């Protein structure tokens, strides 16, 4: 409990009187289960996220079997899926929709929001800003357990007789509101809403903690312009989360009232079996507005942490300062702002006023500008760098590739006229799986490979990492590239069966290729899983700073204990990207080295800063470093 008390003091940077050499000998429960330590909570998020990624990936392979091999006998899946396989050995059509819905929900929320932000924001924010722990360890612990509860509720919904929610991850009413419409809109949908409500609580608790910690708990000298880009990315992500998740809560609340209390917020004059439902006068489009006001920022909640992670990894492994540090921050800020004013581009075909559509189109296309800034900055960081192809680096470069290929199709889709043809086709599926799904997933994997030594004190096997990378990288392109073609041809998403349509029967071979690639890609993840768990116990012991990085987390002991640094928290004197500085002895200068110790590499204005540095670093906080 000692760490929660330290914040009462007036100067939150002074933790010196709190000795961290003392041992916090917790029992098994307080150390591993109900831990308030940010590193343990991060690992809990990571393991839960990996579990859900496996579930979500397996679901996608099951429905890819249906799409790629429509005539296949799926009798052999009966032991797992039971009644969801029809007597003819086919996938139950309604269960197919449930699979698609659950795949989306799990991947977007549980894996790429909780698994990504939850893991790396929790792990890296205190370590990289120089704090003992999060602002509130208790709320942080609650954040994980709300997530755990939420994911358990979702898991339970798989075992309902009527199956989990099946109205798509966007849960548009009236489909999601009426149990008569589809089996999944019964109890499954109720559990979906409960689960999401818990998830929103978890996400808000996490975000509030992240923002508070970044703003209030930085160590001496860690000004905002000296923050690593990872922290900037997590910071913006958390702000987007605080502003957008409450809106999803409102949308879900009104949906709950429509479903359970008979109000008509979203439901309007529906006849089922010739009989009118009591609902009247509601507007289903209203739900879409509210949903996408969260839904679009959510895309950046998923993507920004991955971009931050890759910025850090690419700079470190190119042995070069990140190109355009401030442009990177500016573009993330711009993306964060724009993310709130483009939501209606998901709704071009809802009968929206074309003039309004053109405004949303303009705003949407503007996102290409900051995104391009980021891509150019990645490429120019790599340019003439002394590149080290670590597995983390490969996955980061893979992210840049997906961000580009997926981003370009975003320009097509953002056009309200072209969207009429492409809306709800596999073109959309290809677009968002590349730009947001795969890119973020690669960012997550890159982060795991890069920070595994800090998390578990051991190295992951690089050879297996390369194998994992190439299988996944090629696999992902083989899965999603063909989808562009079938999408342009008008092939609709979420269709259980397409063999009855003459137009689409020509795509049987492409669909088969996609399905095979999906199976191979999923299988390749087991290489990673083996590597991850094997290295955790048997991996080579990690050196203190395996990648020769400059940031603060590598100044901690190999296995940082509760409180992160034994003794004083180090002070920071420079920005985090002093790689290959001309004149310097090594090709990196950690943030903790004062300018007074590096006269050989200082720039003139940096020599000016020396006299502001005192031996204990307490003077350094006044200085805003110029880069």
């Amino acid at each position, binding site marked *: 409990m000692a760490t929660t008390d330290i*914040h*009462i003091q007036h*100067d*939150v*940077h002074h933790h010196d009187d709190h000795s961290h050499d003392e041992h916090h000998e917790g029992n098994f429960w307080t150390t591993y289960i109900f831990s308030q330590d940010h590193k343990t909570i991060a690992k809990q998020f990571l393991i839960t996220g990996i579990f859900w990624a496996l579930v979500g990936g397996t679901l996608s392979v099951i429905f890819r079997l249906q799409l790629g091999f429509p005539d296949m006998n799926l009798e052999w899946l009966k032991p797992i899926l039971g009644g969801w396989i029809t007597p003819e050995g086919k996938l139950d059509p309604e269960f197919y929709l449930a699979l698609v819905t659950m795949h989306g929900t799990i991947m977007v929320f549980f894996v790429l929001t909780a698994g990504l932000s939850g893991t790396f924001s929790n792990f890296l924010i205190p370590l990289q800003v120089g704090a003992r722990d999060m*602002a*509130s360890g208790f*709320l942080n612990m609650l954040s994980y357990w709300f997530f755990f509860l939420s994911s358990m509720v979702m898991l339970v919904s798989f075992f309902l007789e009527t199956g989990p929610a099946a109205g798509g991850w966007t849960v548009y009413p009236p489909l999601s509101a009426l149990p008569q419409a589809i089996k999944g809109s019964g109890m499954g949908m109720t559990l979906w809403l409960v689960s999401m409500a818990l998830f929103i609580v978890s996400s*808000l608790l996490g*975000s*509030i*903690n992240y*923002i*508070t*910690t970044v*703003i*209030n*708990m*930085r160590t001496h000298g860690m000004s905002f312009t000296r923050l690593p880009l990872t922290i900037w990315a997590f910071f913006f992500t958390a702000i987007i989360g*605080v*502003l*957008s*998740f*409450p*809106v999803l*809560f*409102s*949308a879900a*609340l*009104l949906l709950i*009232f429509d479903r359970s*209390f*008979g*109000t*008509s*917020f979203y439901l*309007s*004059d529906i006849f089922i079996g010739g009989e009118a439902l*009591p609902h*009247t*006068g*509601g*507007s289903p489009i*209203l739900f879409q*507005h*509210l949903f996408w*006001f969260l839904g679009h920022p959510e895309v950046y909640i998923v993507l920004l942490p991955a971009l931050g992670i890759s910025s850090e990894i690419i700079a470190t492994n190119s042995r070069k300062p990140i190109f355009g540090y401030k442009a990177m921050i500016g573009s993330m800020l711009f993306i964060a702002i724009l993310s709130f004013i483009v939501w209606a581009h998901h709704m071009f075909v809802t009968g929206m006023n074309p003039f309004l559509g053109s405004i949303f189109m303009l705003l949407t296309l503007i996102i290409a500008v900051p995104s391009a800034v980021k891509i150019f900055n990645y490429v120019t960081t790599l340019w003439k760098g002394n590149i080290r192809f670590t597995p983390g680096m490969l996955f980061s470069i893979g992210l840049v590739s997906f961000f580009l290929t997926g981003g370009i199709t975003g320009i097509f889709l953002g056009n309200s006229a072209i969207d009429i043809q492409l809306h709800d086709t596999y073109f959309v599926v290809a677009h968002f799986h590349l730009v947001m799904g795969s890119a973020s997933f690669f960012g997550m994997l890159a982060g795991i490979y890069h920070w595994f030594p800090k998390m578990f004190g051991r190295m992951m096997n690089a050879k297996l990492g390369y194998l994992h990378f190439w299988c996944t990288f090629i696999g992902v392109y083989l899965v999603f590239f063909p989808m562009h073609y079938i999408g342009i041809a008008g092939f609709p998403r979420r269709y259980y069966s397409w063999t009855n349509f003459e137009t689409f029967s020509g795509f049987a071979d492409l669909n088969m290729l996609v399905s095979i690639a999906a199976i191979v890609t999923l299988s390749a993840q087991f290489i990673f899983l083996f590597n991850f768990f094997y290295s955790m116990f048997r991996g080579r012991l990690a050196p203190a700073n395996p990648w020769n990085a400059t940031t603060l987390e590598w100044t901690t002991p190999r296995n940082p204990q509760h409180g992160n640094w034994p003794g004083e928290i180090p002070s920071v004197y420079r920005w985090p990207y002093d790689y290959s500085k001309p004149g310097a002895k090594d090709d990196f200068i950690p943030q903790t080295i004062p300018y007074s110790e590096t006269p050989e590499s200082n720039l003139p204005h940096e020599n000016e800063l020396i006299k502001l540095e005192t031996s204990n670093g307490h003077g350094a906080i006044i200085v805003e470093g110029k880069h």
Partner: protein
Amino acid sequence: MAMHPKKFGVWLFMVSVVMIFGALTSAYMVRQAEGNWLDFELPTMFWVTTGIILLSSATMHWAYLSVKKNNIETARVAISITAVLGVAFLVGQWMGWTQLVAAGIHLVGRDASAVSGSFLYVISGLHGLHVVSGVIFVLVVLVAIFRFKIHSKNLAQMEMCATYWHFLDGLWLYLFVFLLLYR
């Protein structure tokens, strides 16, 4: 720039609550603009509860000032009155709802225009739920004051409670004026 981290957290929480009600009131306006809208009069009780919650903000500030000056006796009285007024506000809102029901405005109505009533109940109800959380917070602080845990040297909890309480007051004022203007 550094601030008490938990106080900062309370501010961020309030931001997210603002977003919830921002979403609900925008939904209200969008739905209203589509027509088919039942005009309603706000129950007279809502005027009374508005007065009550304004008064409770004043007593909350009184409690805060007393704690700051270490007038623990006065603070006990003031925070107790605040808690009672908080409960009174909730009771008043409930009575307001019964007035609405008497006026024929229900959560679920039979015709298309009844959705305005649904909005009224959901918005005031969700605000009431937040006031319940506020009252619980006030009670926690009340117990702490009675046990001499809160005094001029240990104000953080008191300040957070006061901030949240004034926020709930301000939020209701916004909702009340909004509902008055956009009936």
